[in-house]
């Protein structure tokens, strides 16, 4: 590069000749040179900026284009990944304890229409109305032609219906795949399962959400995609459930009851093997819940869990167990049982105004079901201790099963635990609790005094509960309950081979306006079997039964719930692999046997 000299000799000489300052020329030239350099630098900077801008533009356009394609394209599963881990959007299956299906999913289709694509909306509407009787052709036609661009026609279709819709041949009718919840066993265990419905719906899929029972209570677990491959195993046994529901339905019909419930529970683990409530419903086609009237008249009402009843004499054993545990009495202690008993303005009577007194042993109080005797035992214990004991047994709390209905079944307990409450609570009146709580309480007595938490989930390991009463007390209680069956109020429960122990309970229903309705009763039989080595607890409840085979209608549990429970035990004993056993009685246990009579 040829550099322009800063002081060109010709000009300098020329300037000197004219007498000018030659430095001016030098500065001029320096300025000119700087000008050139600045122009070059600016040009380079501009180029660089342009390059940088272009680079940024390209980078952002690549990112933008990628985002655009990601947003616009259909999501695709990474196909190259190896199979094995199964990720499905399905709701997990529900199985019984033997692995039989209680609830599963089925692929079906929903039908929707895009009227803009329709060729002949009028024809399509008439054809659709012919296929689906519940659709109205006129209304459908109006909806097809009122300018909307999308509408649902049906949520689920059977394959036959789908074929018929295909045959209409209208391009505006579309099918969207649907996972449908299916309960193959129909009405069986309907109150446990509850039901499911569609939640948020899209064209390609719909959410299935639980609407009641365990489906709703464990909705998050069932919908969890990580666990959708592992089915939920319930403690329910399908065979036992089917048999119990069958016998219970027959018993309910024979005893002219308006409802019935049964709970079968393992006394050691608290696993509920069967939970039945009649009348029941089909969870595949769950009826709408009743808006008006008594909720307990609806088939959706779960009597075994939601029903909060005064459970009557079945509570006497709790008073006796506590009194024995406190060392106040033993089975032979004689207790004042002189009926009727006056307490303030209240009179406590026995069934049919009997008088089993003046003194009755504790064992006989249970066997004969003496209200007055139980009341005196309650008074010995005292209100505070009694309340604490019933609370520790869980009888004053809502039941704890994995059902959405369970926490709502709050026990009805008076605000103030006065002495009359102590008296009535000791024979099961004045406080109302769920039958499931009663089953758990009897399980505690049957298993030797360990608290039992009822559960519907089958599991190899259960947390052991706390001890509530001593093993000796529990054993003595079971022996007393066995006497109820051999010579007390529940002689009809004497199933040969399965030594049944239990307690009957008859409680009149409270009337709307107050007081009790003598014609409407709740009959309960809480039983433990086999008595010599207790394994299971069965609670049978009949709602407003009346036994009419005798000369006068009978409404006591001994005539209604007890035979039903006996038939259930006779039927399910062999199914559970329980070998019938010959009962051995110790010699000193042989006493004069009273006439078998059934009364409260």
């Amino acid at each position, binding site marked *: 590069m040829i550099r322009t000299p800063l002081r060109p000799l010709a000009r300098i000489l020329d300037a000197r000749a004219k007498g000018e300052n030659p430095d001016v020329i030098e500065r001029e030239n320096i300025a000119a040179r700087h000008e050139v350099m600045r122009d070059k630098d600016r040009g380079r900077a501009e180029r660089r900026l342009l390059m940088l801008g272009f680079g940024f533009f390209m980078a952002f356009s690549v990112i933008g284009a990628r985002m655009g394609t990601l947003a616009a394209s259909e999501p695709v599963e990474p*196909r190259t990944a190896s199979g094995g881990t199964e990720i499905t959007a399905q709701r997990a299956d529900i199985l019984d304890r033997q692995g039989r299906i209680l609830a599963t999913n089925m692929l079906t289709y929903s039908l929707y229409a895009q009227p803009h694509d329709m060729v002949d909306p009028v024809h399509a509407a008439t054809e659709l109305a012919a296929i689906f009787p519940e659709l109205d052709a006129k209304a459908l036609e109006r909806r097809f032609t009122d300018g909307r661009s999308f509408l649902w026609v049906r949520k689920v279709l059977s394959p036959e219906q789908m074929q018929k819709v295909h045959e209409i041949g209208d391009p505006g009718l579309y099918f969207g795949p649907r996972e449908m919840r299916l309960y193959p066993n129909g009405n*069986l265990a309907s109150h446990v399962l509850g039901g499911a419905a569609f939640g948020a719906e899209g064209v390609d899929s719909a959410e299935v959400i639980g609407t009641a029972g365990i489906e709703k209570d464990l909705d998050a677990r069932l919908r969890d995609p990580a666990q959708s491959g592992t089915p939920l195993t319930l403690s329910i046994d399908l065979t036992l459930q089917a048999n119990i529901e069958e016998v219970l339905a027959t018993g309910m019909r024979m005893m002219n009851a308006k409802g019935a419930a049964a709970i079968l529970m393992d006394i050691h683990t608290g696993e509920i093997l069967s939970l039945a409530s009649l009348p029941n419903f089909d969870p595949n086609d769950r009826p709408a819940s009743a808006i008006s009237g008594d909720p307990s008249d609806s088939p959706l009402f779960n009597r075994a869990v939601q029903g909060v009843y005064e459970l009557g004499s079945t509570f006497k054993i709790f008073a006796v167990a506590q009194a024995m545990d406190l060392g106040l009495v033993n089975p032979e202690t004689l207790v004042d049982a002189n009926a009727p008993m006056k307490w303030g303005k209240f009179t406590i009577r026995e069934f049919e105004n009997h008088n089993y007194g003046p003194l009755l042993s504790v064992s006989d109080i249970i066997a004969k079901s003496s209200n007055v005797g139980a009341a005196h035992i309650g008074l010995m214990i005292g209100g505070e201790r009694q309340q604490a004991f019933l609370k520790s047994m869980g009888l004053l709390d809502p039941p704890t099963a994995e059902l959405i209905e369970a926490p709502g079944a709050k026990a009805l307990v008076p605000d103030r635990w006065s002495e009359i409450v102590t008296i009535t609570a000791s024979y099961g009146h004045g406080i109302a609790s769920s039958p499931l709580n009663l089953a758990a309480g009897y399980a505690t007595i049957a298993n030797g005094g360990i608290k039992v938490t009822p559960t519907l989930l089958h599991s190899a390991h259960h947390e052991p509960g706390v001890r509530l009463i001593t093993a000796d007390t529990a054993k003595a209680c079971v022996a007393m309950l066995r006497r109820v069956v051999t010579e007390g109020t529940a002689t009809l429960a004497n199933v040969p081979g399965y030594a049944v122990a239990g307690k009957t309970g008859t409680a009149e229903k409270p009337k709307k306006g107050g007081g009790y309705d003598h014609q409407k009763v709740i009959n309960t039989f809480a039983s433990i079997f086999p008595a010599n080595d207790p394994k299971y607890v069965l609670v049978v409840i009949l709602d407003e039964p009346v036994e009419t085979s005798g000369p006068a209608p009978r409404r006591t549990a001994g005539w209604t719930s007890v035979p039903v429970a006996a038939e259930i035990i*006779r039927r399910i004993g062999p199914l559970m692999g*329980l070998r019938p056993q010959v009962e051995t009685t110790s010699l000193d246990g042989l006493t004069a046997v009273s006439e078998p009579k059934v009364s409260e």
Partner: protein
Amino acid sequence: MRPLLYVASFLAVLGLAFWAYRENYATQHQLKQMAAVQDEIAKLRDEISLQRAEWAYLNRPERLRDLATLNFDRLGLLPMEPEQLGTSAQVSYPAPPMLKITGTIETEGLLYPMTGAQPNDTATTGTTGKEEQTP
């Protein structure tokens, strides 16, 4: 030497390009096949779940009960009874073959039942003989 090297490297590039071209299409083919297999697996899974649902539906206790009632003539099925459970002692095994008695048999016992009236009437009897017993 150099031209040979150029030719060789050109040929190598050509070969590698051909190989890469083939590999590309082979991979795409494999991916397509894999997608097809996975679609089939998904379809089969759906079918299995449908079959399981159908199996459960056909085996629902209500239907089995009705079938047992319908076919009672042929099957004679009744609900299980407690009496049907027994012990192994109740099983009637064939009687063991009797021993052949060939020699002398000596028995010992009381002639009269022991009562207060005849306290001393005890005697020992001996039977001698040959008994041939055939099972």
